[in-house]
């Protein structure tokens, strides 16, 4: 089971470190990370394995989103199935 973490907003030092820190704490294994600039926005997309999370999904998502709030970024955690089903036939 995998989830996609997206962080979008103004670039700054330490975003990746903060997000991966939360992942490590929750025992979510980071599989892949991409960063790109789209429409003048910094966008980081991280694919993490959540099959052996040490906290429940809701708590994990709340922790990641809290980083977003703190740094004025938009941060989301969504199960990968939504993207697979919407964009793949």
């Amino acid at each position, binding site marked *: 089971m995998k989830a*996609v973490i*997206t962080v*979008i907003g103004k670039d700054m030092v330490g975003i990746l470190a903060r997000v991966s820190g939360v992942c490590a704490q929750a025992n979510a294994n980071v599989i*892949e990370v*991409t960063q*790109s600039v*789209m429409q003048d926005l910094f*966008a980081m*997309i991280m*694919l993490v394995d959540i099959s052996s999370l040490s906290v429940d*999904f*809701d708590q994990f*998502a709340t922790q990641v989103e809290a980083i977003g709030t703190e740094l004025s970024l*938009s941060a*989301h*955690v*969504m*199960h*990968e*199935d*939504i*993207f*697979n*089903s*919407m*964009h793949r036939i």
Partner: protein
Amino acid sequence: MLDTRDILETITMIQDECLDVRTITMGISLLDCADSDIDRCCDKVYDKITRYAKDLVHTGEEISRQYGIPIINKRISVTPIAMIHASCGGDPVKLALTLQRAADAVGVNFIGGYSALVQKGFAPGDLSLIRSIPEALARTSNVCSSVNVGSTKAGINMDAVAMMGKVVRETAQLTADNDCIGAAKLVVFCNAPEDNPFMAGAFHGVGEADCVINVGVSGPGVVRAALAKCPDCSISEIADVIKRTAFKITRMGQLVGTEASRRLGVPFGIVDLSLAPTPAIGDSVAHILEEMGLESCGACGTTACLALLNDAVKKGGVMASSRVGGLSGAFIPVSEDAGMIAAAECGALSIEKLEAMTAVCSVGLDMIVIPGEIPAEVISAIIADEAAIGMVNSKTTAVRVIPAIGKKEGESLSFGGLLGYAPVMKVSGYSPAKFISRGGQIPAPMQSLKN
């Protein structure tokens, strides 16, 4: 790895373009709750609904959290109550109050099915249920009611049409101090679908399984945004863009429905491919039509644009879901759509144009506020016109008009929430009284010689 652009597109759709799942609706059969004693019947109804739907709201919230998709409403539809009431007699309002109590207990937003199917005549339970609708809707807040008065196979029951004009008016009167909200929870159908997850017309048809999960998607904002990106495309290209967008929206509905069905252990019914607007900015079907090149919704050309939209949504959606049903198409409610409200307020959109639009959209005259002094027979005649369009074109049509008791053209009603607000619209003052008072049945139409 997933494509970055796809991920960002999904997030933009949800964050900026109001994409959501409008409703997860659990359909529950109450046929086994029939009892000769109305109180025992009410107990059985309450027990069955609360037993089956106890985890519905919680599960909906969990799915919403996991996929990051807003799921706006969780609802229940039940077997048309007239059928259950037929077994016990007594005051059907008791059953409405029971539905309300059950809805409160499980925390759903709406419960639909205070309904009767009378397209060909009145069976036991039908007449008393229809007569009780005004009181039932005035004494409950989340119960929705519908009456099917016609079908392509049966014709139109004009006795029922005459009754429903009075019922709609009386329902508005009984809730006059609350912006006539009762009438917003009552819809009169022709060719009512049995698996519709949308209110106020949802009920659980008799051909359905004991319990199913139906999902209604939304997403007019996403379609409008997609069209905004191709300002110089031809109409053929616009149809393709809508199809592609509808596909993605529907896949999301399919995912949510499958997951809800798995978690609740209930069979998956259908995805309703409807573009359901809300009064929120950027969530309007009228704005899609305007994006296609109309100065305002209601201009000449509106019907053609809507026909294209409605068809493209279905074509895109059908491929995205294993099971499609319900109303599936574009909704054109006035009060629930910012663009429609604006068009009605500035006079660009009239009831006559809306009626023409219903010949090509998925439902009918929806959430239209009419002057309070309009007599019942005019409302009946509006219902008859609309049912005739549905009957002849083999499609679902419906009427949900709200007589604004004590108000005139130029004033408005405000319902709040998803139901929005709307100006009082002009209705022709010429009388159809003689026609409506005749009663009888409009025979079912020919299905050949289609001209």
